[in-house]
């Protein structure tokens, strides 16, 4: 479909290790103009490391990167961006105190001589046009920190595509996006393709991969496995390439039986965020919360967990009225919460896997006033095995884990606090298919143990596959409560878009 | 001495005389003593004092004097932070036709009057005593005040003047103890390691440091063999002289400096004739004449 079939980017023999451990081992890639080239692999396979090498954020130990006839192996980000590669980063990289427009044009202000004049009006106007073209309703003058995760991700996309690059790397660009935004992105990608722009696309969402990509390269444990045309593969064969074995069905059958009522919220409201929300969750049940971006699902979860205050309404736990002032109270009363924003609320970057995973349950390991490392380490080890967390050791700092493994550490932490109710906000965001299936399995194990689960997800298949009931929200109001039998994608979308 | 009532009538009717006072540092015991005496004296004389602390900053002092000028005080008493750097304050006051009196030490710009003593002299007295005790021969170490400050420079100058006269007295080391007892103690400990029994005497630019040296020497069991002399005659130092741990200190008369400064300021403010220079002499304090100074 590309305009020209010449390779715009050729990578060979790329190797990178961190403190002696190889994260990337002799990897290759050839990218044609106008091609969407997916790079696939499990969490920790080395995809992001690969991309950071391409954009010059990391320096390779060995290997060669040839872009448009130039050897980029030794270049830095500054030069590479100028040469025409841009990147959407998996970790949203934005300057929180600057505005949306300022973030989009950061590094590319009209003239980038340090002492030249800024033209914020022009930047704002251009950003406004760009956002509008993308169908986004984001004020270019809003501060980045005031945006939701999804909005931030869209801004990142806007930033990357406005660079007039010849190659755009997209490292999990849709992890925080809902379906219609994904559709917007795909529209943009198709447009770029016709202009001859090549795209490297990374995602853990199989349907996206097959919808958009022309070619697929698979990595496993830092090693190059294969490159195939997308048409040669189906989900099953791709997964097999990725994980090196066959995988069972994604959504396991639910067998748990509904037990006692665990949580009941009555008419809770939070000014400007949501109002008059009422629902119950029972032991052994998964309640799905569905809605479009900004529907207020996260805000409800945060309020129940004590991260934000309610303006009115009541919350009952195990039949008793509670007053949760802080996450501390919530955890003590048996509520666990996995945030959608794992970087901000999820983990302590410089602490080890072990210290993060036991953070909410530390008193369990205290004898005579002191933390018992053995007990802590044993618990960590079994949780790491259960969740298949890939880390060089328990001592590895979480900041150096791959995104998916960071997510698993957070889930592990919540599980160790022995909750009666677990709120999972986009729990499989950035998680590979294998791990996803494991997390679903895990959710079923939880419900089987009589734990109540609230699952917020923007992936409708996930909502439909996992929930016993689905609460649909639209703009801070609840519009429907659907049983598993009634719920379909169309029904949910219908209620989610109700005014 | 004119009585407070007569003073009021002599002035512009009912207004009290106002004198602005800026002091080098209210964390320095000697300066506090001068200031206390001034406050006492001012109360007796029925005048108002506006006292500010320059916290050892000449810049701050200049600013404070500017502020006094803006407030139109009748006279200014300045205990200068620096010889040169505090001078603009003098010039400004004189330009505003407000009499300005230096107390304790003098700026290079000539003030209306000076009440105090010459720091160089205090070090001469102290060093002379050491030289005589050593019989003109021996090794000494010197602890400087905060480097670059007027008092440090002058005391160092005085000490070196005397040392020149005694070629057989060797200055083993001089280092700053930053006017501080704890720092001086550590410094002395290090010197003991370095020079050990070679040291025959210590001259410290102030009593705080002298007492720190005494403590370190005592701990090392060397105090009997080493002479320690310092300057200021603060109460602790007098007690130490009494106990015989500090061999001598140099007394600077805070009371006289304070009261004479107020006297001069009042006269100057009223346009009466006053002494341009009132020198308050230093006195060496040893066990022999200690009783005169102990209160």
């Amino acid at each position, binding site marked *: 479909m590309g305009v020209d079939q010449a390779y715009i980017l050729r990578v060979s023999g790329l190797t990178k290790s961190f403190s002696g451990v190889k994260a990337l081992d002799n990897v290759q890639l050839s990218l044609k103009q106008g091609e969407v080239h997916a790079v696939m692999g499990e969490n920790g396979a080395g995809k992001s490391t690969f991309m950071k090498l391409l954009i010059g954020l990391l320096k390779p130990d060995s290997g060669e990167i040839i872009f448009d006839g130039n050897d980029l192996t030794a270049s830095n980000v500054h030069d590479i961006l100028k040469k025409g590669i841009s990147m959407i980063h998996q970790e949203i990289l934005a300057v929180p105190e600057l505005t949306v427009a300022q973030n989009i044009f950061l590094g590319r202000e009209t*003239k980038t001589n340090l002492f030249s004049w800024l033209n914020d009006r022009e930047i704002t106007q251009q950003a406004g046009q760009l956002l509008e073209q993308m169908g986004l309703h984001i004020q270019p003058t809003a501060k980045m920190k005031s945006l939701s995760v999804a909005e931030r991700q869209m801004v990142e996309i806007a930033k990357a595509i406005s660079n007039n690059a010849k190659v755009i790397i997209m490292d999990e660009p849709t992890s925080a996006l809902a379906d219609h935004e994904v559709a917007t992105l795909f529209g943009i990608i198709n447009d770029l393709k016709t202009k001859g722009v090549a795209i490297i696309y990374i995602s853990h969402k199989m349907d996206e991969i097959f919808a958009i990509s022309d070619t697929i390269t698979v990595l496993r444990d830092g090693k190059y496995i294969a490159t195939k045309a997308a048409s040669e593969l189906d989900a099953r064969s791709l997964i097999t390439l990725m994980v090196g074995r066959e995988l069972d069905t994604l959504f396991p059958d639910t067998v748990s039986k509904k037990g006692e009522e665990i949580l009941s919220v009555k008419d809770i409201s939070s000014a400007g965020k949501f109002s008059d929300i009422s629902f119950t969750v029972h032991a052994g049940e998964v309640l799905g919360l569905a809605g479009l971006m900004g529907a207020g699902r996260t805000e409800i979860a945060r309020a129940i967990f004590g991260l934000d205050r309610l303006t009115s309404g009541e919350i009952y736990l195990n039949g008793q009225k509670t007053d949760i002032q802080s996450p501390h109270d919530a955890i003590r009363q048996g509520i666990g919460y996995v945030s959608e924003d794992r970087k901000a609320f999820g983990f302590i970057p410089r602490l080890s896997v072990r210290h993060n995973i036991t953070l909410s349950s530390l008193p369990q390991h205290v004898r005579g006033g002191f933390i018992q490392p053995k007990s802590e380490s044993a618990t960590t080890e079994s949780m790491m095995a259960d969740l298949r967390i890939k880390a060089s050791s328990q001592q590895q700092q979480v900041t150096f884990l791959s995104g998916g493994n960071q997510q698993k550490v957070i889930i592990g932490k919540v599980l160790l606090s022995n909750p009666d109710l677990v709120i999972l906000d986009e729990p499989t965001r950035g998680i590979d298919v294998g791990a996803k299936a494991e997390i679903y399995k895990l959710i079923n194990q939880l419900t089987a143990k009589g734990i109540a689960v609230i699952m917020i997800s923007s992936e409708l298949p996930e909502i439909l596959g996992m929930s016993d009931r689905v609460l649909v929200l639209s703009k801070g109001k609840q519009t429907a409560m659907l049983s598993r039998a009634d719920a379909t994608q169309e029904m949910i979308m219908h209620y989610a878009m109700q005014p | 001495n004119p009585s407070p009532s007569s003073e009021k009538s002599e002035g512009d009717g009912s207004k009290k005389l106002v004198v602005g006072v800026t002091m080098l540092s209210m964390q320095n015991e000697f300066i506090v003593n001068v200031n206390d005496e001034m406050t006492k004296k001012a109360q007796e004389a029925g005048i108002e004092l506006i006292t500010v602390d320059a916290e050892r900053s000449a810049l701050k002092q200049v600013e404070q004097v500017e502020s006094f000028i803006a407030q139109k005080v009748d006279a200014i008493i300045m205990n200068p932070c*620096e010889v040169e750097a505090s001078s603009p304050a003098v010039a400004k006051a004189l330009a505003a036709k407000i009499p300005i009196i230096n107390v304790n030490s003098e700026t290079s710009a000539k003030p209306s009057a000076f009440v105090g003593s010459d720091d160089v002299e205090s070090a001469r007295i102290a060093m002379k005593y050491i030289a005589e005790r050593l019989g003109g021969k021996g090794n000494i170490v010197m602890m400087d005040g905060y480097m670059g400050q007027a008092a440090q420079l002058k005391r160092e100058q005085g000490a070196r003047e005397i040392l020149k006269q005694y070629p057989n007295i060797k200055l083993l080391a001089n280092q700053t103890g930053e006017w501080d007892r704890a720092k001086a103690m550590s410094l002395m400990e290090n010197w003991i390691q370095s020079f050990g029994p070679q040291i025959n005497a210590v001259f410290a630019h102030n009593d705080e440091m002298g007492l720190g040296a005494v403590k370190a020497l005592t701990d090392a069991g060397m105090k009997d063999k080493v002479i320690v002399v310092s300057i200021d005659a603060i109460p602790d130092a007098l007690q130490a002289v009494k106990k015989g741990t500090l061999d001598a200190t140099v007394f600077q008369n805070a009371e006289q400096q304070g009261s004479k400064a107020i006297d001069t300021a009042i006269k100057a403010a009223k346009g009466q004739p006053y002494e341009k220079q009132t020198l308050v002499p230093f006195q060496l304090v040893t066990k022999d004449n200690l009783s005169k100074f102990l209160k």
Partner: protein
Amino acid sequence: MKNSITSYLSKPENSYKARIRGIGQYGLLIAFIVICLTLTTITPKFLTVQNLMIIVTQVSINALLAFGVTFVIIAGGIDLSIGSMVAVTGVVAASFAHPDTYPVAVPLLAGLVSGLLFGAVNGFIITRSKVPPFIVTLGTMTIGRGLALILSKGRPISNLSDSFNFLGGGKILGVPTLIIILIVLFIGCSIVLKRTVLGRYIYAVGGNEQAARASGIQLNKVKMVVYTLCGGLAALAGILLTSRITTGQPNAGTGFELDAIAAAIIGGTSTSGGTGTITGTLLGALLIGVISNGLDLLNVTSYYQQVVMGAIIIGAVVLDSMNQTNKG
């Protein structure tokens, strides 16, 4: 409220409140005004043209240093060596400022160049090594103090030319030169921070270093410029101080770093970088100056002055932070 489905996306950020917040520190301004009004009612000596000029003059040197350190802090760094730079540059300038030696431009340039160099050395060490700026500038603070003493042989350098002494001590049309210089630099620094690419990059580097780097901003370049700029401003402060007290002092500027950093942070610059304004910093410096002046005017005993000063500063910033009700 708009009726469109996306009305929630356009929060009233551009509202009145936000615009005022843009000016700097809304609450701090209130605190500042309250303090000024209080002083005006208590003592007639406060609100006179002469006294206000004195306050601004007194504040100016700290403000210049605070401007420099504001750049550094916004960029995510810190500079503890500014006090020592004041001494070094003052001593250097004074060495060339004796009457009938060089024209006044020579001491001025010598001082400035020494400050820029000092700052550049800070920047160089910080960008080439991974040593935290705190340690680097603590080290150069000590080194600088030593250098000032060595250069001056431990003695104040006096007898400076009248034209040099005019720089920081003179008046133009009745307005002290320091005030004029302060205003010029206030405008200049504000423009650099708000209207130039450099300013944008300073915010970006301090706000999220990784994001800045990923956007192609050359961190080292920005940091070098920032520390050098800070050195230049410190040099200016050092030269003006020397001129004002008509002598180059090796122990000038001791402790100035804390005052300058305090002014910046009181003015809303976050110690973690990425936020702050020159206006806020100026307000912070003025606040300290007004309190200090007021306490002197009211003749508060020096020991109690310290207590009151500390309490008012905390109080003013508490008031400020209460005003910023949400984190937005």
